[in-house]
């Protein structure tokens, strides 16, 4: 149990590092939000006044501790431009991004795990080679090329799906699904390529272990052996990879949101970087990083709590 407490506490320094990195990056960036907010004809003094109002004239360390103090109380500040609280902006963007990430994850798991396992069982056959070739191709393709290709095929040639935008679940399940399908496929197939390779490797490893051979010796049919023993034992490494690949998935989200004009967290970051909207950039990156840490921590902890074989 102590190790659990230790693990939970260990996310504190991680989050602190993230906070420091994010804050210092933004401080060093050129481009002045005060000048961007003032009009073209603002004098030096007017810009200076805006800067003072924003607290940008204070020493960096003071700005950092003020910011950190507020963040600890859950106050991420407000956009310099729209004056809308960062938490509200994130909440507005959460649903599209979660839908996209979850959809992509679902696509990846549904295609990669069966195909990866199949490739492992039939290793060195043509099936294996085909699956692995597609997998290599999958993570060699830029996601925007795949995205544009999908739009051309499914939206223009076949006229099945919309080319862009996001329909919230509140507007009905069908419009939501249609709006999210193509982006999820684009992002999901790229993640699937990686996951399929992991699955294949893990299953191959498990297949060579003793108890599987024992299963064979006991006379169980090969299919039963795979389903019962192999996938069960391959699950932990696979789930771990899924957890760590969430960060990579989020990188993909940024591009795919841009291709499909989905108003999610990724496009929020790009917009704010271009405008130097510091509180928003800081808040979103911090939020995403903490989300990533927490997801992985819970995956990690769940092994420890339920599987005595894993020790802290």
């Amino acid at each position: 149990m102590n190790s659990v407490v230790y693990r939970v506490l260990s996310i504190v320094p991680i989050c602190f590092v993230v906070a420091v990195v994010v804050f210092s990056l933004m401080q060093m960036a050129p481009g002045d939000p005060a000048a961007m907010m003032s009009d073209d004809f603002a004098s030096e003094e007017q810009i200076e006044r805006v800067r003072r109002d924003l607290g940008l004239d204070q020493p960096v360390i003071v700005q950092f501790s003020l910011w950190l103090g507020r963040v600890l109380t859950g106050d991420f500040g407000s956009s310099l431009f729209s004056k809308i609280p960062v938490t509200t902006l994130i909440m507005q963007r959460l649903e599209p991004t979660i839908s996209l990430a979850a959809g992509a994850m679902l696509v990846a798991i549904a295609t990669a795990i069966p195909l990866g396992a199949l490739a492992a069982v039939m290793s060195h056959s043509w099936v294996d080679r085909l699956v692995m070739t597609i997998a290599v191709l999958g993570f060699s393709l830029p996601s925007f090329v795949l995205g544009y290709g999908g739009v051309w095929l499914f939206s223009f040639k076949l006229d099945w799906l919309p080319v862009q935008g996001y329909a919230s679940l509140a507007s009905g399940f069908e419009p939501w699904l249609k709006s999210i399908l193509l982006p999820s496929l684009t992002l999901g197939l790229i993640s699937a390529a990686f996951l399929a390779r992991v699955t294949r490797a893990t299953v191959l490893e498990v297949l060579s272990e003793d108890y599987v051979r024992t299963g064979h010796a006991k006379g169980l049919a090969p299919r039963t052996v795979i389903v019962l023993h192999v996938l069960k034992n391959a699950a932990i490494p696979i789930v771990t990879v899924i957890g760590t690949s969430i960060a990579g998935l989020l990188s993909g989200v940024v591009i795919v949101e841009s291709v499909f004009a989905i108003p999610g967290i990724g496009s929020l970051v790009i917009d704010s970087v271009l405008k130097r909207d510091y509180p928003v950039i800081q808040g979103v990156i911090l939020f995403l990083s903490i989300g990533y840490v927490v997801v992985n921590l819970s995956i990690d902890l769940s092994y420890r709590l339920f599987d005595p074989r894993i020790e802290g």
Partner: protein
Amino acid sequence: MEDFFIMLKAIAVSIALGAAMVMSQSTSSLAHEKTLRVSMLYDLNLIDPYAQTGYLPRYLGFMAYDTLFSIDSKGNIAPQVADSWSLSPDKLVHTIKIRTGLKFHDGSPVTAADVAASVKRALQRNRFIHFASLVTSVDIVDDQTFSFTLSREFKILDYLANIHTPTFIMPKADAELPITQSISKVNGSGPFIFRHDLWKPGSRAIFDKNTAYSPRSEAPDFMSGGKHVNVDRVEWVYIADKRTAVSALKKGEIDWIVSVQPEYIADLKKSQGVEVAVFDDSGFDAVLRMNMTQPPFDNVKIRQAVMATVDQEEYLGLAIGDPEYYKVCASYLVCRSPWAVEMPGATLRKKDLPLARKLLKEGGYKGEKIVILDAQDIPSIHQYALITAQNLRSIGMNVEIRPTDQATLLTSRARRTPPTEGGWSIFHAASAGLTVDTIVKNHYLWMNPQRAFFGWPDNPEMEKLRIDFSFATDDKVAHEINRKFHELAWTYVPHIPIGNTFEASAYRTNIKGIIKSEVPTFWNLTKD
């Protein structure tokens, strides 16, 4: 047991999704049968109608606020909130009576006190000249009438009615906020209500029809006349990837792209159900601006040398392509302006590289480094930068392109240090034609280095002509001053005109009755 973890994860994901669903506000647009979805070039991120970063706050102003005066398609002043107005015999006191029965979006009546306060704010925001100091008093006569007194005669109504810093009518409390403080809640007087609660910066802004608005009885004409709204809701969507916006229009997922970038025009012209048009006849005035406080461009000869390398057709043909959307304009004012005077000879219409080299030699160019600021996120501006670099290199200048984005360019161009120490030599820009159609308004022609626009020209003689022009009440005198100013500009070269470009607008053919105007208007039009 391990299956349990997978299930756990699945459950966690569904809980998160469910929570997100509950949290997301219901922005269902199904209830609104007539929703017009419009893709804007930029994102609405400030809602003070006088905010001058980008054009969208002003467009919002025209939707959510009514104006005191406006102009029609012939440039005449037309009343909007004003009902009637008169001028005292000494031409110093203007008395204005406003229409009765007008209401703000919160239901409170529009009174003379609100309008007077709005006029004061508009004058303070007016950037052309410090007009606010010429208004000695503003007096409320009664609930519907107010007057203001000038210290000397000038055409103040022209400036109150102009569509660049119009007089948006807002409640007194908002209008009296300190001028540096921006308005954070839109309580307007116009035909549309801005839905602050549904606003998603970076994604969309929503305007509902203001059913309590009473349009004027005149027919709509440019920015004046009755603003009848025939849709229930207007949704401004911001699609950062312009390619995606074009696809969405072709599929009918959006109804109108207000500004189509040149590279998409050919594609859209071929598309069924899509119409491509130009709604703003004044266009944009593109310029090449030099830093006149640093060598080598502190030297007039070298500025003239750069001018000799410019062939407007080359810039416009490459950046815009389709000749329908640009016009060679060898004038210091946008060519549609009645005040434009075209340069004699072939200057700006044809390169004269031998002359350029000769001027460079006469100017004693010593190989100083030329730094061109290149805003890569704005395609046309980026292309102008590449063309200028190639031209200057061809006459033997030492050119460095400094890549940047618009956000950084706005701060870097304010730097007065030498180009080798973080300063700059050249940037390119384009201004909306109506904002630069006189020598008073065109900020590139302000000649007092203390108050001038970035690049800081210094020419007292030209500055005096500008001020004389602003007070000239006789048209003949004004034209004379204007011509003299232009002639001086041809040799002084405060900037180099690159030509006029016209923004294409593309919309679905079921949208009818879009008013031709520089500002996109959403009244009058219908959607079948």
